[in-house]
């Protein structure tokens, strides 16, 4: 009886935690002091030397480049972990088989999506956009490919593995090269900052897309039990083999 009573009481207190937390936080937010304006000023002053005109891109790729480098690493880690865990789940719905109309739709849509991704990558220099947005569009294209054509990318293939790690390799490679030439990790020379950022962003976009597709692929279809042991089972790619 006492046990039952205490269980009910703990459940009630758990239910009250959310509202209590919200009320407390709302009180704090409503009485916040005036914002310290040092950081935005620093960004605006250094923007001319950052190589890009969009302050968010400048913060992401230049001023706080470490953050983005580690973020690309986190994404790669998650994708690799998902692929490693993907060892024979049976209860998942398999991807639908290739459908003629959906495949044609995908073929029609793919070039536009790639152009949009390239545009987003380029526009990040002076307006909202950049590697993450471009990578998300490319990842959506990859997921669409899996859903409409039943295409299973084979993650053992060296090309896909390279796409997965390209962002981290290029990013850290540029950083280490700058460590040699400029004396600081990821300290871009003002003259080449824009070019270097675009190179890093292009590689990062490919890797972000590959990692997101790998995460989707690990959780849906792609039954590893039916995989041949060698990494050469991409020949039956539905987009490549025409009837």
């Amino acid at each position, binding site marked *: 009886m006492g046990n039952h009573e205490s269980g009910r009481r703990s459940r009630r207190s758990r*239910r009250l935690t959310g509202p209590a*937390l*919200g009320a407390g936080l709302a009180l704090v937010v409503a009485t916040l002091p005036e*914002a310290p304006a040092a*950081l935005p000023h620093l960004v605006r002053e250094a923007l001319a030397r950052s190589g890009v005109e969009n302050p968010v891109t400048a913060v992401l790729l230049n001023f706080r480049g470490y953050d983005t480098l580690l973020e690309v690493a986190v*994404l790669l880690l998650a994708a690799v972990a998902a692929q490693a865990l993907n060892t024979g789940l049976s209860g*998942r719905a398999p991807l639908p088989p290739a459908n003629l109309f959906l495949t044609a739709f995908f073929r029609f849509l793919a070039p536009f999506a790639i152009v949009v991704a390239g545009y987003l990558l380029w526009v990040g220099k002076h307006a909202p956009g950049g590697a*993450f947005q471009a990578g998300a569009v490319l990842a959506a294209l990859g997921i669409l490919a899996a859903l409409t054509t039943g295409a299973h990318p084979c993650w053992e293939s060296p090309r896909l593995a390279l796409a997965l790690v390209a962002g981290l390799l290029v990013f850290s490679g540029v950083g280490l090269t700058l460590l040699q030439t400029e004396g600081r990790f990821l300290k871009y020379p003002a003259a080449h900052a824009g070019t270097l950022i675009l190179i890093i962003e292009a590689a990062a976009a490919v890797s972000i897309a590959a990692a997101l597709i790998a*995460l989707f692929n690990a*959780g849906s279809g792609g039954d590893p039990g039916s995989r041949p042991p060698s990494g050469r089972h991409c020949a039956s790619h539905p987009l490549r083999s025409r009837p």
Partner: protein
Amino acid sequence: MTPPLLYALAGVALFSIGVGGLITAAHLLRQVLSFNVAGSGVFLFLVAMAYRTPGPFPDPVPHAMVLTGIVVAVSATALALLLICIRHESTARSATGEDDRP
């Protein structure tokens, strides 16, 4: 009540709903969803707080942090969902604690 404050309070509300769900929900899928709702609240709060700085342009640093956070949240969510699938496969259970039923 300025619009940024309104958005910040909405972010606080979302965060509290998420934390409340995280504490009360037993099903692992609900917990992951609650975690994402709470995360969205944090993102909304950070974006709103960026407009508190004087001047016509918002502070770009929180905006960049949100962009980073979204990507990390997506990858963590995908991994969590996969782990839930594996746990469900091996134990036929998808819940935690006292309400642990298949």
